[in-house]
């Protein structure tokens, strides 16, 4: 059984159809990409998958269970973590505090723990902190842990967001245009990093991207959409040579 199945997903906003009858699946431990030109409906699909939008019809199954109608935080608790297209950190908090938020969904102390600070609470706090430090080290910015997030360079903000996502130990990591704003060299490192996410933590990675080059390098399975519908699916090689894909990206030769 695939880890995630999207079945006949349709999303309409008062008359405008962003996604129409989209079906695909994400295999466990794969790196899968959803690509398409600007305005093709990639982000809408992403928002449906993470509960930020409620799909008009169709179904989204994760490990066989429907995610439809669940709030984003419930979906996160099921082990699906997303990043945002335009990095959304908690700007006035430190980098460490940002990454500690990743552990929120897998820890449980609440108000009374905070006030009483009993041994279980102390232990959990220590674990959250150590995990956050570990993932900061993993993405290579442990030395910046006490800086306020908004003072970081763009590249480091991206790294912070990755560390934050990793700290949640997700089964499925959803990356929304992870290469946006990165230069050539950083993109190459990103490809290596995404591969490492899988080998080091055994997670499945799904990304949406319009940088063809990066997608072709990193993914095993590519789904191409345009105007909200799927136009091609397959390995990067298959997709690249598909005339409909070339048409969608380059336009037709009238």
């Amino acid at each position, binding site marked *: 059984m695939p880890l995630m199945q999207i079945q006949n997903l349709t999303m309409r906003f008062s008359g405008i159809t962003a996604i129409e009858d989209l079906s695909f699946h994400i295999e466990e431990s794969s790196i899968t990409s959803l690509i398409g030109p600007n305005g093709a409906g990639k982000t809408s699909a992403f928002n449906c998958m993470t509960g930020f939008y409620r799909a008009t019809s169709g179904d989204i199954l994760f490990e066989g269970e429907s995610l439809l109608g669940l709030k984003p935080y419930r979906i996160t*608790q099921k082990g699906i973590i*997303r990043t945002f297209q335009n990095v*959304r950190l*908690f700007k006035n*908090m*430190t980098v460490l*505090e940002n990454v500690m938020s990743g552990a*929120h969904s897998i820890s449980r102390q609440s108000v009374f*723990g905070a006030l009483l600070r009993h041994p279980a609470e102390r232990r959990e706090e220590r674990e959250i902190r150590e995990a956050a430090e570990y993932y900061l080290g993993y993405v290579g910015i442990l030395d910046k842990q006490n800086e306020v997030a908004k003072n970081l360079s763009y590249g480091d903000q991206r790294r912070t967001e990755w560390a934050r996502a990793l700290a949640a130990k997700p089964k499925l990591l959803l990356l929304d245009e992870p290469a946006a704003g990165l230069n050539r060299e950083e993109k190459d490192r990103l490809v290596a990093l995404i591969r490492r996410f899988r080998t080091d933590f055994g997670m499945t990675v799904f990304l949406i991207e319009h940088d063809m080059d990066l997608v072709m390098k990193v993914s095993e399975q590519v789904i191409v959409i345009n105007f909200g519908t799927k136009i091609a699916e397959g390995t990067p090689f298959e997709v690249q040579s598909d005339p409909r894909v070339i048409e969608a990206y380059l336009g037709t030769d009238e």
Partner: protein
Amino acid sequence: MGFIKQTCHTALKPVRQAYGLLSENKRVQYIVCAALFAAMVAGPLFLGRYVIGVMWDAMFYMLLALGLNIIVGYCGLCDLGYAAKFAIGAYTTGICIQTFGLSFWLSLPVSVVMAIITAVLIGAPTLKLRSDYLAIVTLGFAEIVRITARNLEITGKATGLHSIERPSLFGLQLTKTEHWYYVFLVLVVAFIFISYRIRNSRFGRALAYIREDEDAAQAMGVNTTRYKLYAYMIGAVLGGITGSFYAVRMASISPTTFDFNQSANILLAVILGGMGKIPGVLAGAAFFAIFPELFRDIPVVGDMRMLFFGLLLVVVMILRPQGLWPERKKR
């Protein structure tokens, strides 16, 4: 405007340097806190009744500001009716003592329960929506509470409740100004303790994530509706407790104490001090209590003190939009 900014910037340089020294050295911080606390404890031995009264006032505002700070400063919710929370505590205690003959200490848990009930009644439907709606609802609710209190028999209508019996502690009836000074000092310390514990916990961080970016907080698995409700409840409980103590300290309460001005003052104290930062919130509250007193006796200026107060607020907000307390620097 640039000129004013520049002048103040230069004038405040020594203050900033002193703060820099303070923030870098944990030990110095502890010493300063201990010294302040010792001064507060020893204060009544040397000071006159009037000064003790003003300091009590300052501590009373500190309690309210610390309570509201959980809602506004920690969680970023806009509450324009904090006076209602403290009115509910005050009236609950007043009614418990006068109508039902309970002792003050037994009325405290009743206040807490009432605070939680009202917080859930208001919070549960509104906190699901975007935070802006809370501002309107809390504003309206505060007026409802005040008008209801002015019209009900049990709350004493417009005259309020009078000669509420003062409680005793270890056989000592708390009647003197000094007694109340120490009771409120203990409360301030307790509220600061609670605030710090919440701030440095998974729960407190979740509130901060909501304040910073609600969508991102959801994406990290924070049940934002529930956590906002928790923050709102804690703020209401602290306000209710403050109200209960206020009722027995003053021995009389009336609806005029709980008008919109009161809510606005508490909110301003929190914003002025720097939302979320405890020392700043304390300073903001103290400033609010002490400033009008300083100018009371000066002729001409004394009559216009609220005007100066307003001007000063405007200047502070231009110079330090994040509040009086300096931004946390790199540790």
